[in-house]
């Protein structure tokens, strides 16, 4: 966990592309919301490994958003429930239901569909919010943080040594 955090801080402080980190967090958000072995998660895992996004940020985001998904589960199920039981969408879902892939993806399950829809809808704002936050962090927060005593104290800790090792600045 500490290694992952150190990797994330290294990414935030390094010259890694903000887009790569923000995309990793966004994909981690979609995976974190859905049940672990959902088909959509396997596809996203494939994407994360295949395209250049920051893996540390992705894994941390999955962990954080999995926790948050428990708090949001009521809303997620409600979204899935209202979509799957909506009379207007019945014909669409009935035709999708005839496809094995649809059933294999459990998109006829209120939680899985709700998580998928909430994840996709919020993915765009999450991407841009985190992209902006990372830029702001690099410009403002990092410099301010450097001045704090606690940060100076942390610099003497084993976590910071780990961070230096990861970033290649360690002895």
């Amino acid at each position, binding site marked *: 966990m500490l290694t992952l955090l150190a990797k994330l801080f290294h990414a935030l402080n390094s010259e890694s592309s903000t887009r790569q980190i923000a995309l990793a967090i966004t994909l981690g958000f979609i995976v974190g919301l859905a049940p672990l072995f959902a088909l959509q998660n396997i596809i996203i895992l494939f994407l994360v490994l295949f395209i250049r996004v920051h893996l540390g940020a992705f894994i941390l985001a999955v962990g954080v958003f999995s926790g948050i998904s428990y708090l949001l589960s009521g809303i997620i199920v409600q979204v899935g*429930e209202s979509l799957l039981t909506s009379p207007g969408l019945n014909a669409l879902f009935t035709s999708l239901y005839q496809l094995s892939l649809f059933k294999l993806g459990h998109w006829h399950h209120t939680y899985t569909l709700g998580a998928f829809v909430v994840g996709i809808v919020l993915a765009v704002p999450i991407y841009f919010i985190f992209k902006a936050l990372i830029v702001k962090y690099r410009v403002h927060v990092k410099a301010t943080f450097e001045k704090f005593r606690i940060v100076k104290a942390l610099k003497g800790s084993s976590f910071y040594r780990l961070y230096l090792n990861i970033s290649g600045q360690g002895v």
Partner: protein
Amino acid sequence: MNRYLRWQGLASFAVIILLIVAFIYFFIESIVKNGIEYGGSYYLGAEVNVEAVEINYNPFELNIHGLQATDPEKPSVNLVSFSQATASIDVWQYLFGKVIIDQVVVDALAFSSPRAYPGKVTKDITDENGEQEESELFSTPDISLPDVNTLLDNADLQTVKQSKLLEQTYQQEKAKLKGLKDNLPSKEKLADYKTQLTALSKVKVKTLADVEKIKADFDKIKKQFKADQAIVKQAKEQLQQSKDLLVEHTAALKNAPEQDWQAIESKYQLDKVDGADFAHILFGEQARDYYEYGQVFLEKVKPLVSGNNDKPEEINMGAKGRFVHFSEAEPLPDFLIKKANISIVSPQGDFSAVIEELNYQHWLRNLPTTYQVVSTNVMGGGDAKLDGEFSLSQDNDVNGLGNWAFNQVKLTEVALQESSKFTLAIEQANLAGKGEFSLASGNITSSNSINLSQAVFNGSGESKVTNMVIDTFKGMDKLALGINASGPMLSPQWQISSPLNDILKGAVQQQLQQKLAGFKSKVQSGLSDKLASALEINSSADGEIVELDKLLTDTDGALDDLKNSDVIKQKQDELKNKATDKVKDKLKGKLGDLFG
């Protein structure tokens, strides 16, 4: 392109998937084993053990060896156990969210088998036992009649409950009325209003402005009258509500003794005693017990099979969601066992059961669940068979039919009556019987006949009546019973007929009826006493209500008088008279000058 893609990621993906598959392949058996043990223990509230789980992949088959589920009420025995169960599961449908089992084979299914060591119990069963003890108060039909004091001490009597309710309501309403009474304008306050009005009436008016000032002062006081009158109005409404509530509860209390008597009569089958329906008294409870076994079994199995999956769950934190299935060309139920072969081992004999199409959505495949249970060694040599089918409709109606028969079943030491004052048992007998039943829209119709031959009875009794019954039984070696049930599945009406009734009529009936009349009079007098003491509360409540009603009427009247006071009109008239007098004086002066 390489700026955006990570080709080595493909290999990583393949490795991760392979690792997951390998993990599942190597550990799935222990995961399933632990899942059954933990899940079973959680559901049952007692230790569940599984010797081993084996999974074959082609075709996909789950083998469970040596399952033992502890009975939470008797940890030294198993509620259910089997030596092996094999289930062929349709994996594809499982991945689609449905459990479709092509075949299940269960070997040596046993109920109440002893455990090698007592299982751990995690569920608190104290409450359930409490309930059981309570219900036992009303469970044993007995020719010797229940104890009157025990009956009258029972807290479940409506007379007791309604008395408590009346007292509770009285206390609650009393507190409400006291609160309102405290807020009512006091006598001093009313007197003060009067004084203020009198003071206003004594003020001398010379100009219109004086009248206006008095009017303003009066309006100020009137505002207070109105506020007080609102309080009185609210109190009157509350009083009416309290009155209605107390009247309602008193009426319920007055009806309670009659209801209690009817409940006692029905629970103890006193109507049957009255009608000398001895067959019902002696065998009715056994028939109901066997019927209840079936009901309890269905209640236990129903949630396991249905999974409660067809209704939206309450939306809250930790919600898990549900599958919503849509119509398809060949619909399948959410849960289906196409065929189950079960061998059952019980102290009564070995049974083999074949069940087909076990599910709870019969309308989807339009096929009922069918079952056949057969045994050739019931009680050491008797034959038994049970055939039937049932189906559930979309409206949750159960429809079905079935028949059963058994022959040459040897009974030994079967208790028919077991109370402190009367015991009757079949020492030995040969039992044969057959019956049929049908279920339609939640109602059952069943007719059954049972024949005992080469019967030997024994028993003991304390009263003349019970001894006469025991002697009659001892003189018989054959007994035929016709048992019919009809009505709602959960509470059918039972009719039990037998030549026994004719044999026992006469002297026994006369004695029983005398005893019953005495019993009825004692119970009813006890209930009347309870009613009388409870009604005392009502009479004191009545007195308080009348007193408060008078107070409210008086206060309201006094406030009305004050509000309608004509002090302003008096002052206006006074001013008018003064002005008239003044004009008159002036006119008189001028006329005096003119004629003077």
